[in-house]
């Protein structure tokens, strides 16, 4: 308390502020100032909420009329100026599945390392710094990396495999951070009880810690899916195709993808019908926000039902 008070005093160099408000006008001044400041704060919240509301309303109003079953389940036709987005949806689903296959086992194991094995030393510090940096690397740099290493160096070509691996790297920090948080929330006493029964450390992790952390881990996985489904820059040169007349048949095939499709429909195809553009944007938004909503619901239910 004393430290806080002296700190507050240190941060107030002006003499007038140090004095308690003695007469009415000074008090009035402070109150008025507070009123003005709070009005500005409320206004800034409004300034932030308005564009978000506008973006979502626009997408729903403009995109909803285009979203028919025919649009979702047919191929683009007439030089992309008609038809639907079926191959782009399927391509995005394949890409997301591929991403999960690579990112989840590795991410969860790395989280297990951090929560169960890591000691507070330089190595752990370096690992944490690496995760922060992986999360901060620009998505286009992931695209370059994936192109350089998976497409060219390892010879996978522009393919689902190269794209999935690239996206997996991008979402790895998302999975690790969520999984670690979930693992840390499992009470220490659970581990002690298991070890006291004679279980090894790995048995404890597999039978006690991981099952109890599962909902949190799943939350992380769903968030990773949302992220992977919406990214464009990393797939530009690793997997995305402008147009394919058929669905990909192997992991070495190229694929169309929803975010890339939206990009080309709004910048590369002259006179693209607005209905197709807005419909594609809304479909992508529904998938991504839907995944986020699912993650939020799992998290909320997990918190409520937690047995401890």
């Amino acid at each position: 308390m004393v430290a806080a008070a002296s700190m507050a005093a240190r941060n107030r160099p002006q003499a007038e502020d140090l004095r308690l408000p003695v007469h009415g006008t000074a008090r009035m001044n402070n109150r008025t100032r507070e009123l003005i400041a709070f009005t500005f704060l409320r206004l800034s919240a409004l300034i932030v909420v308005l564009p978000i509301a506008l973006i979502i309303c626009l997408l729903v109003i403009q995109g909803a009329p285009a979203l028919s079953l025919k649009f979702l389940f047919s191929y683009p036709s007439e030089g992309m100026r008609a038809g639907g987005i079926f191959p782009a949806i399927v391509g995005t689903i394949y890409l997301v599945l591929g991403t999960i296959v690579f990112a989840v086992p590795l991410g969860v194991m790395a989280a297990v390392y951090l929560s169960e094995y890591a000691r507070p030393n330089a190595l752990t510090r370096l690992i944490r710094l690496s995760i922060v940096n992986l999360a901060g690397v620009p998505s286009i740099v992931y695209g370059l990396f994936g192109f350089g290493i998976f497409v060219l160096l390892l010879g996978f070509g522009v393919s689902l495999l190269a794209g999935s691996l690239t996206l997996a790297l991008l979402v790895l920090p998302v999975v690790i951070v969520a999984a670690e948080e979930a693992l840390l929330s499992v009470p220490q006493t659970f581990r002690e009880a298991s070890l006291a029964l004679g279980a090894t450390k790995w048995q404890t992790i597999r039978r006690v810690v991981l099952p109890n952390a599962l909902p949190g881990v799943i939350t992380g996985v769903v968030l990773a899916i949302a992220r992977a489904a919406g990214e464009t820059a990393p797939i530009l040169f690793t997997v995305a195709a402008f147009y394919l007349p058929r669905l990909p048949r192997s992991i070495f095939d190229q694929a169309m993808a929803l975010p890339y499709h939206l990009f080309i429909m709004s910048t590369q195809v002259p006179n693209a019908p607005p209905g197709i553009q807005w419909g594609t944007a809304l479909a992508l938004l529904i998938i991504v926000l839907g995944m986020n909503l699912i993650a939020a619901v799992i998290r909320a239910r997990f918190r409520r039902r937690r047995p401890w």
Partner: protein
Amino acid sequence: MAGDRRKITDAVMEAVIRFSGITTIVFVVLIFVLLLRNGLPVFRYTSVPKFLFGRDWLPLSGVFGILPLILGSLLVTAGAVVIAVPLGVAVAVYIAEVAPPRVKEFLKPIVETLAAIPSVVIGFIGLLVLAPVVQRLFSLPTGLTAFTGSVVLALMALPTITSIAEDAITAVPRDYRAASLALGATRWQTIRMAVVPAARSGIFSGAMLGIGRVIGETMAVLMVTGNAAVVPTTIFEPVRTMTATIAAEMGETVQYSPHYFALFAIGLVLFVITFAINLLADLAVRRSMASR
């Protein structure tokens, strides 16, 4: 015997898990090495000063000066920071200190939703809705300008800045507020002179991470800034950022050509910049934790 097998499994799994932890370091190093290997060869065709400070980006003629691209990125980023940092911090203060619980519960998910919208969707809206407004408002020849990019990027940096700043403000001990209020300060004086100063490392860290996100942002910028690779003079002109250049040109280059190397070298510059920004933000967070 069964006990032996258990012990072996235990040791094997520990090794696998340790390895998984260390792969995160391996990936960062791998990205850096690959960018170096594919980027440095550009200096067989140009010099470091000519590359960094050359005023002309004419890849088809073999002239690789990235100054206009660096300035493009800086201009768009600076504009976004001017808008997003004060606004983001103000919203954080509002959510943490002023808003009634019900408003708070409504605002937080909205800000999180903004973070989840894919950048290509934001770019699409910027292209179709914001750019025409900017063009008419300032009577410009085109609405695809650095300013448009700044507005779009500010929107994308806001959730990062707001959520980290809000965490930092909420983490300020209650005692600070109680002490300040007990001295007769108003709530606003308490916020301004006790709470926000105590949370400044966290606020700084949020601002840095927001800047990191803005500098690295690709698709939205590619779609709304007009992509003119010239040294910009005002914010109402088309510019081209480093990220947009890579995105727009990588698909058309010949492998292992000077142009290919030059694009990887831009990637290297971006990697180094974002690495430094993340390090700064991380140090700020650690400092604020250590002082508690």
